[in-house]
């Protein structure tokens, strides 16, 4: 039996990888990928906790996260396509219509 901590640490590592991706990538598509990674990392933690406490609530939340991720991808990609059509680029640095 693998201790729950293992899953939690794995989940944290995956989340950190996702966050790292969010921070450094400039490609908008990559940002989406990184977001997916973070969502999956959380799902792993939820599933692990659900298993070790014998509670289904964790899995329920994981389901809803999957649903939200799917919607996010659909909408996000739609927006991304529009953006690309207008500007011909999905570089984050070009997304600067507001000047600070």
């Amino acid at each position, binding site marked *: 039996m*693998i201790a*729950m*901590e*293992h899953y*939690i*640490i*794995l*989940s*944290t590592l*995956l*989340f*950190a*990888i996702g*966050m*790292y*991706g969010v*921070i*450094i990538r*400039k490609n908008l*598509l*990559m940002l*989406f*990928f*990184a977001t*997916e*990674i973070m969502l*999956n990392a959380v799902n*792993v933690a939820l*599933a*692990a906790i*659900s*298993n070790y*406490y*014998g*509670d*289904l*609530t964790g*899995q*329920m939340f*994981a*389901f809803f996260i*999957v*649903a*939200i991720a*799917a*919607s996010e*991808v*659909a*909408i996000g*990609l*739609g*927006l991304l*396509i*529009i953006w*690309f*059509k*207008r500007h*011909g*680029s*999905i570089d984050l640095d070009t997304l600067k219509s507001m000047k600070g």
Partner: protein
Amino acid sequence: MIELIAFYTFAFLTIASFMVVVTSKNALYSMSALASGMILISGLFFLLNADFLGVVQLIVYTGAVIALYAFAMIFFDTTKDIKESKSSKMIFLLSAFSSILLVLIMTMPMASGEVSALYPVHQGVGNAQDVGMVLFTKYLIPFEVAAVMLLVAMIGGIIMAGKKMDANINEMKEELEK
């Protein structure tokens, strides 16, 4: 023992694939690595006795989401090189430090130990059946709302992506500049 081996295999492979996702310069590689990572995560779910979640993971993520990405990439000029910022020390420290903190926070409930199951797993019942029971009794309204949300997202995605499908990029730019 086999469980241990399986866990570590899945774990290292997942980490490796996701590392590829965030570091690779080629979007296609990234996407492929992402797909593999998703599949590997579903393996973790099976290990955790969350069979139904594992299946959903395979169908929704690997089947639908990745496919969506793949189709979306048709629209983009993926060969175009996007200049990535150099990974600085600060960013690395930020991520490392926040992960450590997250571990701390995640392990906090275990330290307290007093956690009781709200919807306990029933012994001798399959996971899919169990999930179905809870989902359609306790979480019915969130489930329906999620369904509507998915519908809305689908329609929104179609409209946004399908709008002026035939239009040339350059024409749109001109239009915008007017």
